[in-house]
């Protein structure tokens, strides 16, 4: 029986994929080598890890406005996270998800970096405000 976790209504399509989780923040400009598809900021907890097709689970958005364009550019090249799950985002990440067609949800009851684990198979339904953990039952 999948675990159902509710959140605020999000943005973008319903998708499924594997979670990559860290108690850290996110900016496409600050943190990523977008050509190689890896976290490049040395101090980031996911430094060196690939984000392509993963469901990124992080605390909050940080920094500047570039992510609003960059998610679209990353999606066009097919090297992009499949979905974004955050505790709470800033406007830029929401704008970027809306423009880039990337699934995004936030505002859960509880800390998403604790609710979800790296390797969880997730189904994210932004329209319903719902995330399912498909591969564990507690």
């Amino acid at each position, binding site marked *: 029986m999948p675990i159902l976790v509710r959140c*605020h*209504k*999000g*943005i973008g399509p319903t998708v499924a994929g594997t979670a990559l989780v860290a108690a850290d*923040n996110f900016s496409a*400009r*600050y*943190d*990523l*080598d977008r050509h190689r598809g890896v976290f*490049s*900021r*040395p*101090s980031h907890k996911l430094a060196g890890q690939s984000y392509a097709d993963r469901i990124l689970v992080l605390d*909050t*958005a*940080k*920094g*500047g*406005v*570039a*992510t*609003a*364009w*960059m998610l*679209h*550019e990353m*999606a*066009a*090249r097919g090297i992009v996270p499949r979905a974004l799950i955050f505790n*709470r*985002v*800033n*406007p*830029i990440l*929401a*704008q*970027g998800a*809306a*423009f880039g067609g990337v699934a*995004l949800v936030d505002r859960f009851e509880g800390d998403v970096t604790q609710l979800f684990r790296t390797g969880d198979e997730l189904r994210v339904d932004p329209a319903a405000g719902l995330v399912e953990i498909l591969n564990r039952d507690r």
Partner: protein
Amino acid sequence: MRLSDEERAMLAGELGAVRRWGISHQIAVGEFFDAADFVPVSQAHVMADTESLGEAGLRFLEGLAASPEAERRVRVPTITDPRGIDFAVYRRLRQTPEMAALEQRAIEALRAFGVLMTDTCINYQTIMAPVRGEHMAYGDTGVVIYSNSVLGAYSNFEGGPSALAAGLTGRTPRYGYHLEACRRATRRFRLTVKPRDLSEWGALGGIVGEACGSYWEVPVIEGIETVPGSDALKHFGTALASFGSLALFHMPGITAEDAVFAGSPPAVVTIAQDGIEAFLARYAAPEDKLDVVVFGAPQLSLFEIEAVARALDGRQVHDGTTVIVATSPEIKHAADRMGLTSRIEASGAVVAQGICFYQGYAREMAEANGWSRLMTNSAKLVNIIGGYGYRPTLASIERCVDSAVAGRVL
């Protein structure tokens, strides 16, 4: 969201496909943040550097720009954030003709909307500052936090697509810092130190920003005995926005609004000189070979340009070091006219207009020039540039210049 007749008409495509895209995008964002309705804005400010846009973003802009003129013109004055290429200097920085060609396409597309190519992140110092209570759609975090805090304007961070949408529709969803409830203070800091220069104001912004760590936090800064100038608050605000994603701060008696706490006042966090020293020490690299010094992020005011000129007068930048000074086209023209540009360039430094270093293919520039160690007086830049493969050091203008002349970090 509650829509007016005009907004419904835009959504139905009665005002053309471009405005239908704009309002649809804005509704998606507005509903995500539970916006009740739209609020008219009097300016929009678009960040659209080609590194962020990529080919896909550029094609999107060109697609909209090909619409009939009446359908694509912006409805409120719409200006641009810094670009990635200054056509006069890009070859010296080893940016490529391909990058310049992308830049030219972006400029042509933006002009087709009637966007004014101001290419600046210091529009509040150079173009037209907002007045208190004015609703804006500003697309640069430093511009937003300065305008909201120092001047009392109302803006969220509006990324490129959203700022362009606001220019096209003349409005933005009413959420976040357009609402009084969001502008109440949530955190409290007290200084027992007086920052000595702009790099220390930036360091202070970095400390407070990291401590807050969310767009939705609003810090109050107490204990400031002397009113900081515009450049000091510019560096403080841009660092707050960069390290913490913050969009508003209050300094009682200095910034525009009274600092009203959301609930009972939170505990005070004290920041002393040792906090600033520790922050600077994170980036220290004494005696390291120095590859590039960047003055920018935010672009320099006329007074900062003059300070750089004074520090460089009669000196030569080391052969192994490049010095880049980035400012707005308005200030560059003023600096040309006043002889400041020639004073700076006599040292071997490059004065660029309308660009920002980190918005100009910083990774590719590092690879083409063999750059690694970067020195700057901008706390914002040291925060950003690590992700592009640089090793940054933060110091005053004077120490950056002394180091550039020596070719190593002093």
